[in-house]
């Protein structure tokens, strides 16, 4: 990867990562934008409530529930799905890096990257999807 001898292989990895990140951000922004249209059409005239913290309902907190909500075309669920895609983008990058290090047989960094991936999945509450 960033070793002194910058090989064609490294370039290929960098290109894939660049494409991955760009695709993730564009996809996330598009989904959020679609959700925004639904949201403003439905709630545009309603009063706001952000001064008082209530916390989001469970269907906007967990991965599987957000998916269900978005597929049911609920405006807030669609936006939340877009945000989830955005959060998943760096996670996907780390996951891809595991493969890249495996390909290079760089086992130290395969382990390092797997630790980071595990921490990310932990933070997303992976075991109560």
């Amino acid at each position: 990867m960033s070793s002194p001898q910058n090989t064609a292989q490294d370039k290929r990895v960098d290109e894939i990562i660049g494409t991955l990140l760009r695709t993730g951000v564009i996809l996330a922004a598009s989904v959020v934008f679609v959700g925004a249209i639904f949201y403003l059409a439905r709630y545009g005239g309603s009063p706001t409530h952000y001064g008082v913290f209530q916390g989001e309902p469970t269907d906007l907190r967990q991965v599987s529930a957000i998916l269900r909500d978005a597929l049911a075309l609920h405006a807030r669920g669609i936006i939340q799905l877009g945000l989830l895609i955005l959060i998943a983008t760096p996670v996907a990058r780390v996951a891809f890096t595991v493969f890249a290090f495996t390909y290079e047989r760089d086992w130290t960094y395969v382990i390092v990257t797997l630790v980071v991936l595990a921490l990310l999945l932990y933070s997303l509450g992976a075991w109560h999807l």
Partner: protein
Amino acid sequence: MNTLELTIFVFLGSVAAGFLGSLTGLGGGVVIVPLLTLVFHVDIRYAIGASLVSVIATSSGAAAAYVREGYSNIRVGMFLEIATTIGAITGALVAVHLPLSYIAIIFGLVLLYSAYISYRPPKEHPVAGKTGRFASLLRMDGAFPTAQGMQEYHVQGVPIGFGLMYVAGVLSGLLGIGSGAIKVLAMDRAMRLPFKVSTTTSNFMIGVTAAASAGVYLSRGYIDPGLAMPVMLGVLLGSVSGTYVLAKARVPLLRTVFSLVIAALAVEMIVNGFTGRFSH
């Protein structure tokens, strides 16, 4: 103000924050929380959730450009990510229990530091002459492209860098910012990476760190889609346009003005923290 009006104003504010953040290299994240809490009277927990989302968007957008130029050191970044993600999860979990006024005051202090950094950007300094023990064990040395071809560099100070990165992670999870200033400090000063390598590696790390924090905030119900939507789209639009302008112009005056704005916001956050405006 109804939802449509608030969405439009927050969107415009976020475009400005993203634009200035990308021009000055500070990122839009540092001004989103003060903007939402002080101007729009949004609860600081919602504000932090929305800010984190925008941090991921700008980091991933910018990183897509940087990786292709071959500056970032993926080994250094990935190893230090262990520290920042653990820090981010710690910070996000602590934030749930900490009184809001404390968060506001800590935020103000970090803002003051950011204003200082932005006003006085770090100077180039001599890079490391030899490789440190841990850096050698972890094979962290690298090379980056210059006008004279590939330039090799050494890495040192891994333990100090690792410790500083944990702190950067905690602040990111606690305050919903990218902590880019501290990350650059750790790699630039402690680990002696060339400036270009430390800034781009820091940017790559910001996205991963913010994703760890955002995961905790999302599953705790702190990320409100209605509020995060205009912030994310606005900051993204602002920072992308900022990148295009940046390629053409150097902006010392703008940098000074932005530092002053940040310092003023910092003082207001701290004052509001002490007078208890955030504690409800």
